[in-house]
């Protein structure tokens, strides 16, 4: 479990460093980093419980989504909404082709505010589930 928590902390440090140094910039990278904090925390919880939720995005989604039948580690609906939102915003950060660079960054900046909030909520939930973070 510890290696997942260490990786999550590493990604969080990376996010916090670029956020402190480049306020309002590189939000595509920041959002991606925050999602990768979430995914490692989720893996940490699964390991903590001795459950294999897989490693690909699809596998993890299928195993933690509370609406999926056969999910191995269902999380609460609220936590799922936070996790999935982080996934969607990190996907948007890698998705291009419909806006100019300036608009792209503005949208990512608005989403960064959302990502920060969703990760805070997710961490609170994971703590209640016994994850030592």
């Amino acid at each position: 479990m510890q290696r997942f928590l260490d990786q999550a902390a590493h990604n969080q440090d990376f996010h916090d460093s670029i956020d402190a140094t480049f306020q309002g910039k590189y939000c595509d990278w920041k959002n991606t980093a925050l999602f990768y904090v979430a995914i490692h925390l989720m893996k940490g919880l699964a390991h903590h419980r001795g459950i294999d939720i897989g490693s690909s995005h699809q596998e993890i989604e299928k195993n933690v989504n509370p609406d999926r039948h056969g999910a191995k580690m269902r999380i609460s609906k609220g936590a799922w909404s936070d996790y999935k939102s982080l996934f969607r915003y990190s996907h948007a950060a890698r998705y291009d082709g419909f806006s100019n660079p300036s608009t792209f960054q503005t949208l990512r900046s608005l989403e960064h505010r959302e990502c920060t909030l969703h990760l805070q909520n997710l961490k609170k939930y994971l703590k209640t589930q016994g994850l030592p973070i």
Partner: protein
Amino acid sequence: MEKLEVSKHIADHRAGQLKAILYLLQTNLDEFKDEVDRSYELLKIGEKTPLSQKIEQSLDNPIESIFGMSIAIDAQVRIIVDRIVRAFIKSRANLIEAAFKTKLPTADLHYCIVLKKDSTQNRAKVFEFLDQYDLIDISENYPVIFQFVPVELVSEIEVQEEIIVGK
């Protein structure tokens, strides 16, 4: 025992899919009914809507129709999913100020949405559609993407078409 569990898993999966499809249909039935009613009324005076024409083509030449459908299946699925998305957007007119199908070099189902009030809660209410849609197997091949856009940035987005939100 293992076979029983696999069977149960498949049955549960099917039930989940059905639930998601029914949820999506709920938001669409009214619109489909309107089109069927319109086609029926117009046919009385000899006018054929695209829906009537398609049904007629299928009756005239079912084999060619099936063959043609298989060739165009990709486009057809996109059209159906697009209609479902539009119906959902209209059903959330209380939250959505404006919506646009995004112009992209690909055929992706990408929509830009302007919320009346941009908040985490309102974003989540719009994402509820994707939560259901993503449970259906076709979502892997035909992903739907919602992009929230502040009204002042709409002019910066290349749009294919504005979706009329209010009736």
